[in-house]
């Protein structure tokens, strides 16, 4: 779209469920190594956009182009299911945490390295006979998982069941698990939901560190404005499936349309605002 280095181009994306238009002709771009936030009131269609990007929904129309650093472009709407993560290197977390509760924190991070380990284990056969190359690969995978547990401060609880961890730890573990797939684009669906102020601050620091250390581009849905305003480079605002504004956090904060979408407008201004929004 623009001249900047974009990792994700969302172009005229629409998603309909029967008669309901959840996303209506949405276009925006996420820049590489930047944090892009997607905000909007409840029911604006943010999670639907996420589900389209991560292959859980097939968009009704529009294109989603992911460009890797080597200029390899992938049309996400043509990939399905697990290939989005495996080939396009897009990882995601969920609004309601989806860890593997009966597996330990370490095991959760090992499962995330499935595709790399599957290759290393010679599609299981080398692993079954305990080949040295497999053992080395497994050790590397454990080291990688330990590194992430250390980053999120959970190394002491590595052997505890994920379902037994406190809520905030589960949120961070889910992000670490997504990062263990070595994604180019990390999509986080409300990572700060249910966190207290201190945990939110720690989350902001973690996301900034991920971007700085790994150069991962981050796309973020968030309601916690302190997190959004602090860490995002670019903000896209949605309401009723439409994009109503985009820009830097500062621009968004002062945008009358955004304020109207979140807070509503005076009764005598309704007509004028609706006309302005094209409703």
């Amino acid at each position: 779209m623009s001249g900047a280095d974009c990792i994700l181009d969302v172009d005229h994306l629409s998603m309909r469920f029967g008669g309901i238009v959840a996303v209506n002709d949405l276009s925006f771009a996420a820049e590489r190594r930047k944090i892009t936030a997607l905000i909007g009131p409840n029911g604006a269609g943010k999670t639907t956009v996420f589900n389209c990007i991560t292959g859980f929904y097939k968009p009704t129309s529009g294109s989603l182009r992911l460009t890797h650093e080597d200029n390899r472009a992938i049309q996400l709407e043509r990939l399905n299911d697990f290939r989005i993560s495996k080939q396009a290197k897009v990882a995601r977390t969920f609004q309601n945490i989806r860890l593997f509760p009966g597996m330990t924190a370490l095991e959760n991070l090992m499962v995330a390295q499935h595709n790399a380990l599957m290759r290393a284990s010679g599609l299981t056969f080398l692993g079954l006979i305990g080949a040295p190359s497999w053992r080395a690969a497994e050790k590397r995978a454990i080291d990688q998982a330990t590194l992430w547990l250390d980053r999120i401060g959970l190394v002491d609880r590595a052997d505890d069941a994920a379902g037994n961890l406190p809520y905030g730890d589960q949120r961070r573990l889910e992000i670490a698990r997504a990062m263990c797939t070595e994604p180019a684009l990390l999509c986080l669906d409300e990572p700060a939901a249910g966190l207290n102020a201190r945990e939110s601050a720690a989350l902001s620091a973690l996301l900034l560190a991920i971007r700085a250390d790994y150069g991962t581009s981050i796309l973020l849905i968030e309601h916690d404005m302190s997190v959004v305003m602090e860490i995002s480079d670019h903000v896209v605002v949605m309401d009723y499936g439409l994009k109503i504004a985009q820009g830097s956090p500062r621009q968004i904060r002062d945008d009358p349309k955004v304020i109207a979408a979140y807070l509503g407008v005076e009764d005598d201004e309704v007509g004028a605002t609706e006309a302005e929004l094209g409703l």
Partner: protein
Amino acid sequence: MTATTSKPTPSPRAAVTAFILKKAAISALVALVLFSLMIGIRTEAGPTGQLIYWTRFPELAGMVATVFFGSIAVELLRRWWGPVESIRIIPPRLTRALALARRAIAPLLLIFTFLVPVIFYDQRYILDLGILVLTYVMLGWGLNVVVGLAGLLDLGYVAFYAVGAYSYALLATHFGLSFWICLPLAGILASLWGVMLGFPVLRLRGDYLAIVTLAFGEIIRLVITNWQDLTGGPNGISGIPRPSLFGIPLTPGEDGLAARLGIEFSPTQRVVFLFYLILALALLTNWVTIRLRRLPIGRAWEALREDEVACRALGINITTTKLTAFATGAMFGGFAGAFFATRQGFISPESFTFQESALVLAIVVLGGMGSQLGVALAALAMIGGFELFRGFDQYRMLVFGIAMVLLMIWRPRGLIGHRAPTVFLKRSEAISSDLVKEGAG
């Protein structure tokens, strides 16, 4: 205001009593409806073909009373006894001793199993029973891959057992192939059928999956029954060659093992050989399963059981993961089937009814889904215990049923209800079954 607050609230004890009585009354009502026709009225055809009936109300009343008081007893037991997880009053020292004992069970059991043919050499009955138990241990371990690890409810496991048995029987009788060549072939053929079952059921979950697998098991049995030219239909296949010790037959003849070793021939030698054969096959199943659990494919199976959506988001191919689970489980079923055929020397579709599937599934569920030791113990209890009750004669099923009900009240998640992690940093700690999902198919 003050008057309303003093309103007496029912004590928890009264509430519990009311709940138990209500539950018992409902159970008794259901029993009354069911038994009023089954027991309350007895009908017979008279000498001229007319209908004669008479009522048996005392028996009916007795039955309903039994259900009423039985329901109260079960509910009280559940409250006092409770699932083991809820009991926290056991002193830590005792818990540690129990944990140690639990760790010692598996090696002790293995050593004992190795010694069974030595100890009971003269008791053919015990040896045969041991072979039967080990066959079910192996089947249980095989099904455990599908049900316990991948969380896919499979009610048609006997189909793979049948495919393995018929593969060996047909290959051996038609082409004269030896057992040791047919064994891997039977496993491969069974796993091919596992993949064939897997494809249509990939999108199904839970109950729907169970129904389709159940139908698959029946289809295989019906095809075997009706394809007379190939399988001999209901007459089965007889004269299936017995296994040899790497080419040396276990027969009284000149070239038999006994003659070569210069010892006297005894039919027990073959039974002992079969015992160690099935033990080796079962241990192979166990070893492979334990290895697979620690490999990415095994972790993917367990992750699939925990959360399929999260698996997809992590780039795990659900299709191949499910198919490999079906294929691996089926392969072990095929091995067991080949062993069954060579042991019996005769197979017919009667050996592969739904009852077998149900029995193996019961072993897996009773053992604690996913636990290798639990499955072995459950197979011992189900098959060995069933034989033990033979003395009870006609009450055998009743005793067995009561034992099952009590066990499920006491340990709702099976004998071994914990999950052992596949990898650990510092210490491996068992994960409570409360957290482990059963899988939605």
